[in-house]
């Protein structure tokens, strides 16, 4: 151990010998070579080039596990104290690679194939044919258009959630009861919401809401009969489920605002609206942006209510990208095309969320 250097962060400075370094490298690269070899042999076996008769990909998985273990040990052998630090992070990183990156790469390879599970010929590489099919697929773009409308509705949801959060942050009677009561819809599964609300309460003839609508003068209430009303009904059901999520986040933000700030504004003569608009709302911007971004992510996954209540109808008016992919994948066993649609959707989401986060960052940056 040498006493010089960064004593604050480095407990010990190891003197790693050359043979030990060689041993570390051998451990890492040897196990990596084994992994490559096993994976290559399995690939050849699957392709029918050699006849190992392996029933599954477990040998490659075991080789990956062995390499991951050797990599971790190798870091310590190779780098000593620095290597030990890496071992704190490396297993998590390798696990993520195994659980996210591998499936993504596998998904990409499927996305560029013609793979209908009913086809006798199995999976065939078809270049950009799936992309061309997607480009000309009116169902996909219709669903994508619907998603824009669904996402736009988040602004209304945000306004309602903010109003409810302000209400629950105020000194009102039975505040705790209302906080719990308003959270209840969030505790329900969207499938339960689909059946309880969409299929029962909104049932056109005997549903209580239909009866109420008739009592109020709507002769023949139909909540899913026209494209516009059906879309709005789906939006309302989804909003009813997830507004509490935004509300609770905004409520937490409101409670974190120092009371002195609003009191100071009032002392300076600001009325309730000016206090809200000039003090509360700007201070809530970071929380608001976070709530909206999280809600967008939830909204982009919208499928269960649509699948259960309208199956995308009438005429695709309520279809979402996810519910369309579900039909393409599950009902039509069109794995190659369905995977491509999902990958494209993922890319679009990543791009859109990156842009939104940049904008949000700019929006919430303190103005000087």
């Amino acid at each position: 151990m040498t006493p010089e250097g960064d004593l604050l962060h480095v407990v010990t400075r190891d003197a790693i010998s050359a043979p030990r370094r060689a041993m570390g490298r051998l451990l890492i690269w040897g196990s990596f070579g084994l992994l490559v070899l096993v994976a290559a042999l399995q690939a050849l076996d699957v392709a029918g080039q050699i006849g190992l008769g392996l029933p599954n990909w477990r040998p490659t998985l075991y080789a990956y596990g062995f390499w991951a273990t050797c990599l971790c040990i190798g870091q310590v052998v190779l780098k000593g104290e620095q290597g030990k630090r890496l071992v704190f992070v490396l297993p998590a990183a390798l696990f993520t690679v195994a659980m996210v990156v591998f499936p993504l790469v596998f998904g990409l390879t499927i996305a560029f194939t013609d793979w209908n599970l009913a086809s006798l010929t199995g999976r065939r590489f078809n270049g950009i044919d799936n992309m061309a099919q997607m480009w000309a697929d009116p169902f996909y773009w219709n669903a994508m258009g619907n998603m824009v409308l669904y996402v736009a509705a988040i602004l209304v949801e945000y306004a309602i959630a903010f109003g409810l959060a302000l209400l629950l942050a105020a000194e009102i009677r039975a505040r705790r009861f209302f906080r719990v009561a308003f959270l209840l819809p969030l505790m329900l599964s969207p499938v339960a919401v689909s059946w309880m609300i969409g299929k029962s309460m909104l049932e056109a003839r005997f549903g209580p809401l239909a009866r109420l609508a008739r009592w109020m003068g709507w002769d023949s209430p139909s909540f899913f009969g026209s494209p516009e009303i059906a879309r709005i009904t789906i939006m309302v059901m989804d909003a009813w489920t997830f507004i509490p999520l935004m509300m609770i986040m905004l409520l937490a933000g409101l409670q974190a605002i120092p009371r002195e700030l609003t009191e100071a504004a009032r002392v300076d003569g600001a009325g309730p609206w000016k206090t809200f608009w000039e003090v509360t709302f700007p201070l809530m911007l970071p929380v608001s942006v976070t709530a909206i971004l999280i809600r967008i992510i939830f909204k982009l996954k919208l499928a269960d209510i649509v699948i259960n209540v309208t199956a995308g109808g009438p005429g695709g008016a309520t279809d979402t990208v996810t519910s369309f992919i579900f039909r393409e994948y599950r009902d039509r066993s069109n794995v190659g095309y369905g995977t491509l649609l999902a990958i494209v959707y993922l890319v679009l989401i990543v791009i859109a969320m990156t842009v939104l986060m940049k904008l949000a960052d700019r929006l919430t940056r303190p103005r000087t």
Partner: protein
Amino acid sequence: MKPELYHYAVRRGLTRRRLLQGAASAGAAAALGGVFTGAAGRPAWAQGNLRAEILKIPGVGMGSPTDADWQKVGELCLGPTRERVAQGEFAGVELTFMGLNNQNLHNFLFRGFLKPWEAYTGARINWIDLAQADYNARLQQSIATGTVDFDVLEMGAPFEGDTAGRGLLDEMPDWVKQQIEADDLVGYLQPPVGTWAGKSYRVTIDGDCHTFAYRTDYFGDGAIGGPSVPKTWQEVNAVSKALVGKTDPLTGLPAHGYLDPLKGWGGFGFYFLENRAAAYVKHPDDPAWLFDPDTMKPRVNNPGWVQAIQDVMDLIATTGAYPADQINADPGTTAFSQFLAGTGSMLMWWGDVGSMARTSDTSVVGDVVGFGINPGSDRRYNSRSGQWEDVANEAPNMAYIGWGVYVTARVSGDEKKRKAAWSAAAHLGGKDISLWMAAYPSGFQPYRNSHFIYEEWEAAGYDRAFVEDYLGSNADSYNHPNAAIEPRIPGIFQYYSIAEDELAKGFAGQYKSAQETADAIAAAWERITDQIGRESQIALYKASLGM
């Protein structure tokens, strides 16, 4: 029998006298010991009247059968197995059985039936239980990824193309045909159903078809629907339009005619357009009605099919013909939320809707339901000549064809295991055990000619009128000479699924006409055929039609 139907039959047919008779006979049998306890010293198959004996387990009106009852029936019906398999012959053999675990019993029942078979033969069965919704995906994925991990499979005939067509099934040995007395199957379940390229693969355990249910209070002298029940789709549409503005005699709400499901149902919704279309396009001289068997060119956009779509569009365009929100009604809605709740007067459905009319707590139409076969047409379209013919036509739709038990090719290389698998399948599909399955809750409908001996049902405690009504509607459909049989080709539900999507657009007015809607379906079907492989589809389609 569908469980609901059993309860319906019990409620409808069981009198106090019969209940006492049943209890007395059960008591007497129990006093004698043996048969009902499964501890008989003499072999079960030696009994003089096995069929009558098993129909007394547990006895109509004695509550739903339990696992103990299934085991008793399985034990009593082991005779044919004992004739072909020595005791303990399959010791050490392990089989994996994949089937359904839904509310209609299926695997639960099979477990009970096969327990005495396992005890006698020495084989052991491992079970893969699937929810109905997961079944198709699990089967397709197993096939596509080469991970078929089951030896015996409960499967619907529509999937024969996906399995037999790929050589994944083991051919049925001749001794199995003899054991299950395959000649007893009703006509439409005879080959080519259950066969591919002349080889048999299926032990049939079920029959399926759509029958016509109607409200008896809508039809008759002075009734709002007219003096007689519609017999053709033309009459169905005319009545549906004429009922607009009238009041339902039962509920006092607006009256409606036929209930078309206008929303998709995972592919199953297409069966309901088929009901209409079959009457127009299923020509008695031609087994094909969905595709041209030589080219796989879809017939779904020929004038007959277009007429069926147009019929639906006509009713959509007639304000009040359908209930509000019909555009969002799937088949489940039309049957259970509408028809049984007193909305609408005519419906096509599988065999259980009539029974639920009596047994479901939400039903209000229990006393006013009648049955018939699929309505016909006063003209038919001949695909070969490309002309309409002014000849009346009827074509019951054998939707789904029913369940069967199949053995996979996994056992083909091991003769002992193969014999064990087929023995298990044959036990489930035996002639006598099938009568019990038809008469008690099992999830399966009658499917043998011997199931229509009304005296056996009556002797078991069923009401004769009920039996004749229920069995008669099935028998008339099964035995119809022009039944529309489902094509058993790979990916058949893919065709149905995309058709549902296109129909939804057509019904929502996004296409200009019925013809344009039908053309869109045909184009989508062509793409699926090309993707799956046209030549193989042609070959498999012909094989499924027995051509």
